[in-house]
């Protein structure tokens, strides 16, 4: 990190585009995928990923010095996707009032997935923001608790709790969890997760 900073200070901004471009090329697909998992819209996902990259560029003097600037970019994606989800609901209602354009902005051919996979991501998007973010990072990027906590800037315990609730909710919405099992799991979450852990 020090070396990078020293180089930047010595060479001025000329080194920034190359470093940043490499970072952007490396992270772009992952950021789009993460954003898509949270928004379900290719257009929105690409826009959010682009905004995250622009934000990274604007703060590259700081972000470029982080151990994992990609984590910083994912946090931006998570935050902006959260804002998008809320704004999209408002825009949708607004557009309905003046008609016919509720689907606007989704004109790009969207991400084509098998139905079962699409169903899972749709269920993820029905979760509260933080749960969706945590479970998406869990499945999509196989992130550890600590990594996820660092990305989302929250406590590891918070991540664990959100992941637990998210997985239960997903299992329920996908019809994988029966009522009695759900009750048992809800009553003793630690037991259920410990069991799951044992099975791994």
């Amino acid at each position, binding site marked *: 990190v020090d070396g990078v900073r020293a180089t930047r200070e010595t060479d001025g901004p000329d080194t920034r585009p190359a470093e940043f471009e490499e970072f952007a090329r490396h992270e772009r697909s992952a950021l789009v995928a993460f954003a898509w998992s949270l928004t379900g819209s290719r257009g929105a996902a690409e826009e959010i990923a682009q905004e995250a990259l622009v934000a990274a560029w604007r703060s590259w003097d700081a972000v470029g010095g982080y*151990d*994992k600037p990609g984590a910083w970019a994912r946090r*931006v994606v998570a935050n902006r996707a959260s804002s998008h989800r809320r704004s999209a609901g408002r825009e949708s209602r607004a557009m309905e*009032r003046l008609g016919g354009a509720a689907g606007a*902005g989704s004109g790009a051919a969207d991400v084509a997935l098998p139905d*079962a996979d699409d169903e899972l991501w749709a269920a993820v998007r029905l979760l509260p923001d933080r749960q969706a973010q945590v479970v998406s990072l869990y499945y999509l990027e196989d992130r550890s608790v600590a990594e996820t906590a660092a990305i989302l800037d929250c406590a590891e315990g918070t991540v664990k709790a*959100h992941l637990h609730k998210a997985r239960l909710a997903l299992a329920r919405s996908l019809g994988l969890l029966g009522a009695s099992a759900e009750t048992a799991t809800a009553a003793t979450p630690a037991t259920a997760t410990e069991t799951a852990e044992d099975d791994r």
Partner: protein
Amino acid sequence: MTDAENASTALDQLDARGRQAAASLRSAVDDLMADAPPIPLDSVVVDLRDAPRRRRRGWLVAAAVLLVAGLATAVLLRQTHDEEGTIADDNPTYLVARSVPNGWDLVEVRVLRAEDFPPVMDVTTSVYGDTGRDDPWSGPLLTVYESEGVLVDQAGAGGEPIEVAGHPGTIDESSGTVDLRMVTEDSTVMIAAGDGMDRAAVIAAAEGLAGGDLAGAVPQGMELLARGPGSAAVPFGSFALDGLSMLYGGSSSDEGQLGVLQRAGDADDAELLRASPLTEVTEVHGQPAYSVDGTLQWYEPSIGVVVTVLSVGGVVDDAQLLAFADGMEPGRPGEVDEIVKAHSASGPFGRLEPGEVVVVEGEPGADGEPDWQLVASDDGDEGFGLTFADGGGSTGVGVSGDEGWGSLSIDVANHSEAIEGGRVGVFGAVAPEAVEVVIEAPGREPIRFEVHQVEGIEGWDAPVFAGLVPVDLGQADVAVRAADGTEIERMSWSPDEGSSQGSTTATVVDGGSVSSDEAVEVDGMSSDSAEASGNSGG
């Protein structure tokens, strides 16, 4: 098998599905990114860096009509306002409905000003056709949209990459037309959408367009049929324009509504709607009128206005729409002015919806109006919301949910760099015991915000704050303090991050409150496998 075993099995199945879905998504996105044109990162990012941060969307020819209409509609509703609530005497007279279907009334009127629209909406449309035909509009058409200053994410385009006269672009034939778009050095977007034309002809036209000689590059026999504002070329599209919008409806928007958009123009402008291949020609007030997808548009020569009438929600059919249009008459002297006064959206940032309350506003400016406003809302099933509105638009976010009211949330208003002085709006909710939010950035005086209670929304327990910070604030600390000076929460934050959530809140697990440290263990997420430790700010 016990319930616990069933649950374990279910979660195992879920995890397997999750991994499969993740693999599919990663693969699909990789494919899309591989197909997408390479992003000229340097130029795009450099362009974007110093540009106002407004919402940027991919610009897709195939969906241009809907996309632009959607943006425009949002702008109509959220970004325009009439500071005076009146129309100046030198503005044109507009048509007024004398008979409205279903016993509906006028529910909203807005005076539109082109300057209130972002530059992305300032589009010129040109349509070329075969003038040798009896009806040139029924033959091959070349429609060109040109917009100054539009910033485009190339990755948002469908189709295959193409280079036109040295300019990066895409070409897409998937919609049955040949849609070509490109971006020039000055970020002008030019789109050549050929309906009934072959690929080579569209590319040749685009090359001519890039070289400044579109007319010389269109196929022989094709001539300019109409050229005018983009607002006339899409159903109720209304790009940047000066005019008047009126909305007629009943007690609930669920029952359908009628929208009327009027602006100065001419017969050619009205005919631009024929760029849509499904448009049919009819007649209103003895003038040619164009009908497509619940929209009717014509030029009203008596007052020099292009009128667009739109059926919202499909409740009003084409015949009713035509009758409604025929029944419209120029307003009597002073009538339109009175209508605007009576029905304009209240407040500088639009009418409040049911369940919305203004919590705090910025200081009044020279015009006596605040430059920003924070609105809290009960969004029903979606929870609670906060919306920061300013002259550039509004940014809405959720402020509750699983996080509860215990932690700081802070958001940046996406549009508010329009506020004079290079400041950006910040707003958020804090813990109930908080009385002050302080933003501390290196080398700057701390920026203090009072917190405000939200009155009138049941269940809203968190104070909120809002205000402006310099857009170039950089990385800062946000501290939340209680009345006795105790620091409740502190987190690192930058306006570039957008929104952030605090990290010290208690987390609710299965209906009971536990501290974060007490939260349950979850399989597969080993807390000691940290790789990001020491990754300050990320």
